[in-house]
């Protein structure tokens, strides 16, 4: 890492996470202005986006190679009052909370109090949503049955495909114009809506071009003042790049990265989509630029935007900027040296780290309590034709990941049976340094998952995983995570005949007193009824919320990036994408399985404890029943030990969840599906559940992902993988398995090679994802005691890595409690 990168990296790491009121202020100004009158909602959204990008501060940090910040400075984080308007109290909590805090200055608070809150109160999406949701939904939400991703953040969750690498925004504008021309107002009753949406996309495209041009201008200004001739030249070159992209297709590695970055800023400025945004298959997209073979065939064919009838049209500004001298990139077509590419990638990495997830409060903060905003760079896998996609750049990117050692962006390696062991081994060598990156995914499973969902084979092969572990067809799918679902809580409610014992309130169905169940079959039948009851409520909520977003919060900018929104003239939030999926993410499969297993084993098979007694023991949180708890913990079959007794119940529980959700329509036109991942929600969900029959004490975290209950997987890693593979991963949109190994295991080549075989074996069994924490519990305990000495300790949480000292103590304890696999 050279000095420049070192400095930028330090700056990024040390920047204070704070709230910037800039976006909220500009958006409010726009919505108060006359410009908003008389235009359709999509056009309003697009004009608001344009107003923001025309007027926000341009931030160019010293020494930067890739430019563009969402806020006025690194980690100065925008808020989105039209989605979720924070109260003054929210701001105070954000400012003062111990973990994942955001500094809020007095001026911002004042602005909120005087201007933003009075204007947005009653109009935000959050309020619209809660106003429309039925009482039963709210009760379930309060009980901790499920969470809701879209109550503070907009839908998103998608990944960019390859279209920006061969086309500029001027090309997209032409496509938009063609789509408008093709509208048939005689035959198509939605033609007007489509025209408005397309007009909005066109405005949004202009907005990003303007934003880039503003950077070009600023860079030229800086160049003029710059004393250092090398930096001066660099700034001029960067100005040229910003002048070219995103308007026209990129020709060089640098242009391609800068282009993506502007697009990224666009997506996360338009609204606050979950999982920010993601370039996806970066080694594939950039490889032609790395080798210098990417020079677009149609270079120069794109004409400037047509002089329209719009006021504030960007063309004049653009044309004046075009006259600026010396800003045509000198690289031209041709390859780039490895070292130049490395530096640019490192500069690119830092940009992600500058952008924490927008502030979350309440349950939303609990379910995803991290600054990480879940960009997940994909490396490796296969090409659209099915051949091995790993290339030189894949390895260079892995070098960058290792050297940068940042929590953002997240990174993963797709491992297909066609990829060489070298790729997996290189990834493992980084993983063994102990910061949980890159995570490992099974390409062949992902492709099968996507084709099972109905994607065509090429789209499936161009896909991958994003966020934590979520399967998606990149560039062509709207796949939205709607919220976590507390699988273990459903069991608790089943055991209490529909009553939530924490609140003493009946929120479920009356499925009979558990004491009266004649056998395990009765218990499962009752569980199934409760599960369907609550899934129905969740889906009803999802469909209401999705319609509200479709109507009130279209995203014309994101829409122009995801196919086939332009062609269909439909918004991303309204079924514009080629494929639509809404996910419900199950949490606590291990805890649920072990609890059901304990009931089957002790109450129904061995009959050594009655259900009545079990319920009394759980109500007492095992106090006075330590021997029985010991029996439940130590002498009961458990998931994660390759024991069919427990694993068959895991498969049953999985199938019930799968059947309850999969195929139910979602209001964007696709269907609901499941995946199994928790982020930090297993801690929150655990906090609303009393003692469970598996021996877990009240309020403690649930198991995470599809990992076994913490500490119960005492038969070694092969047993865990076998158990985990007994659920049908190919029917999901992603599963998450974490394992913890002691650093000693990977100390030598032998250990590394055997871990490689372990991963390959799991993938042969259709496992979707696996990740490792290579750290020992002693280190983690020390870090807990002396956080100041362990500020740089990064651990794998669930589908992401985070600074250990930034985690809540309950989550820290949960990670320490995970079984540490050693060599034998």
């Amino acid at each position, binding site marked *: 890492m050279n000095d420049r990168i070192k400095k930028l990296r330090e700056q990024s790491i040390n920047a204070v996470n704070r709230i910037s009121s800039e976006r909220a202020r500009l958006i409010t100004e726009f919505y108060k202005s006359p410009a908003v009158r008389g235009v359709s909602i999509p056009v309003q959204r697009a004009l608001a986006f344009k107003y923001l990008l025309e007027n926000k501060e341009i931030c160019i940090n010293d020494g930067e190679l890739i430019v563009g910040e969402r806020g006025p400075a690194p980690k100065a984080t925008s808020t989105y009052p039209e989605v979720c308007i924070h109260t003054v109290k929210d701001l105070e909590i954000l400012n003062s909370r111990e973990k994942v805090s955001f500094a809020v200055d007095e001026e911002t608070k004042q602005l909120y109090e005087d201007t933003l809150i009075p204007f947005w109160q009653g109009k935000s999406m959050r309020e619209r949503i809660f106003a429309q949701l039925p009482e039963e939904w709210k009760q379930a939400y309060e009980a901790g049955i499920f969470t809701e991703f879209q109550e503070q953040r907009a839908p998103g969750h998608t990944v960019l495909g390859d279209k920006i690498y061969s086309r500029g925004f001027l090309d997209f504008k032409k496509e938009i114009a063609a789509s408008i021309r093709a509208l048939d107002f005689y035959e198509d009753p939605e033609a007007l809506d489509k025209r408005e949406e397309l007009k909005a996309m066109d405005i949004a495209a202009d907005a990003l071009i303007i934003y880039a041009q503003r950077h070009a201008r600023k860079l030229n200004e800086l160049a003029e003042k710059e004393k250092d001739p090398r930096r001066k030249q660099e700034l001029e070159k960067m100005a040229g790049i910003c002048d070219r992209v995103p308007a026209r297709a990129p020709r060089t590695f640098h242009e391609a990265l800068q282009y993506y970055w502007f697009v990224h800023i666009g997506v996360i400025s338009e609204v606050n989509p979950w999982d920010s945004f993601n370039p996806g298959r970066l080694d594939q997209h950039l490889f032609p630029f790395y080798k210098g073979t990417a020079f677009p065939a149609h270079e120069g064919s794109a004409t400037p935007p047509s002089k329209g009838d719009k006021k504030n049209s960007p063309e004049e500004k653009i044309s004046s900027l075009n006259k600026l001298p010396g800003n045509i990139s000198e690289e031209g077509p041709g390859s780039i040296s490895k070292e130049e590419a490395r530096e640019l990638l490192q500069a690119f990495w830092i940009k992600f780290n500058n952008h924490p997830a927008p502030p979350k409060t309440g349950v939303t903060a609990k379910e995803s309590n991290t600054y990480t905003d879940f960009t997940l760079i994909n490396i490796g896998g296969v090409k659209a034709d099915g051949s091995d996609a790993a290339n030189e750049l894949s390895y260079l990117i892995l070098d960058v990941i290792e050297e940068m050692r940042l929590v953002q962006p997240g990174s993963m390696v797709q491992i297909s049976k066609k990829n060489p062991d070298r790729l997996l081994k290189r990834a493992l060598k980084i993983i063994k340094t102990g910061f949980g990156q890159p995570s490992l995914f099974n390409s062949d499973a992902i492709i099968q998952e996507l084709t099972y969902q109905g994607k065509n084979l090429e789209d499936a092969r161009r896909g991958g995983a994003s966020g934590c572990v979520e399967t998606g067809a990149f560039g062509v799918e709207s796949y939205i995570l709607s919220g976590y679902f507390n699988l273990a809580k459903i069991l608790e409610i089943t055991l209490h005949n529909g009553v939530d014992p924490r609140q003493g309130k009946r929120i479920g169905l009356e499925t009979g007193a558990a004491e009266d169940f004649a056998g395990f079959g009765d218990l499962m039948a009752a569980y199934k009824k409760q599960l369907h009851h609550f899934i129905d409520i969740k889906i009803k909520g999802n469909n209401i919320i999705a319609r509200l977003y479709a109507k009130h919060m279209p995203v014309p900018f994101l829409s122009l990036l995801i196919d086939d929104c332009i062609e269909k003239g439909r918004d991303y939030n309204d079924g514009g994408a080629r494929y639509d999926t809404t996910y419900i993410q199950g949490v606590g499969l291990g805890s649920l399985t072990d609890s059901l297993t304990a009931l089957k084993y002790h109450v129904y098979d061995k009959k050594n404890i009655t259900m009545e007694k079990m319920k009394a023991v759980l109500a007492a949180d095992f106090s006075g029943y330590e021997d029985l708890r010991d029996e439940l913990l130590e002498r009961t079959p458990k998931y994660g030990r*390759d024991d069919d007794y427990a694993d068959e119940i895991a498969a049953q529980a999985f199938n019930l969840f799968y059947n309850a959700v999969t195929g139910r329509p979602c209001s964007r036109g696709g269907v609901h599906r499941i995946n199994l991942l928790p982020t930090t929600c297993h801690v929150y969900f655990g906090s609303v559940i009393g003692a469970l029959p598996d021996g877990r004490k009240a309020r403690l975290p649930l198991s995470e992902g599809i990992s076994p209950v913490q500490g119960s997987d005492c*038969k*070694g*890693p*092969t*047993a865990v993988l*076998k158990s985990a593979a007994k659920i049908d991963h190919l029917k999901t949109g992603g599963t998450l398995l974490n394992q913890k190994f002691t650093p000693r*295991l990977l100390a*030598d080549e*032998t*250990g590394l090679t*055997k871990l490689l*075989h*372990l991963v*390959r*074996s799991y993938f*042969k*069994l259709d496992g979707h994802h696996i990740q490792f924490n290579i750290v020992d519990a002693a280190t983690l305990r020390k870090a807990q005691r002396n956080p100041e000495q362990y500020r740089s300790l990064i651990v794998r949480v669930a589908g992401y890595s985070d600074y250990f000292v930034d985690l809540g103590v309950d989550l820290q304890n949960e990670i320490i409690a995970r079984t540490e*696999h050693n*060599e*034998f």
Partner: protein
Amino acid sequence: MLDTLKDYKIAGAKTGIIFDIKHFAIHDGGGIRSTVFLKGCPMKCRWCHNPESQAKEPENFPGKVSIGERVSVEHVLAEIEKDTVFYDESGGGVTFSGGEPLLQPGFLSALLLECREREIHTIVDTCGYAVPQIFNSIIDKVDLFFYDMKLMDKEKHIEYTGVSNDRVNENLKTLSEKEKAVVIRFPVIPGITDSEKNLNDIADFLSPLKGIDEIHLLPYHDTAAAKYKKFKKENLMVGVKPPPAERIEEIEKRFTGSGLKVKIGG
């Protein structure tokens, strides 16, 4: 002491006594393996790191700890077969260790045959001390032998392991004559096995043996101290430190010089 054939139970052994089955064993041979630990050992090596494995029968130790359990061939096979996918992927298999697996030849033999039928690679990790007829009866059922060589001096062998090395040497010669795949395992115990003389004697002994050209050095480690405490057995190795890395390197060079392929660790 097991000196005669009748001390071994061979016929119809449908069960045996094991004290553990470890999955994901990665230092007991190639690939990912499962290691089956058979209980009982004819030697009492002073540095033994599985002292709880020495007695043939299951034992009870203080604190409700019991070591060893009589199990069926089917039970062991079911455990072994659970990890077939890992063996296949990694070129692994099963390692029979102990204790001394040859102390239960009927049981071992049945397990080996069942593994062969299932195309599961087998290693027998043996101290070599067995009645030759017994030893010969399993030779052809094993894919690879891990064969311990400790001390060439007979008196010292008796002193430190409790038995003579005559049979050990004889059985190894048989393996060589039959051209079986063998890896020598040599525990480097400071002050006991690492004398120049012993190293020379081992190298000289191995050099005429055809096909035996790989040796693994197993440096002494003191992790068993906790076990001696736990199982209330007298630890005769108190104060012995693991050999320094430089010493291991020297020994590696010594054997490499004799044309042996040397690996450190399992």
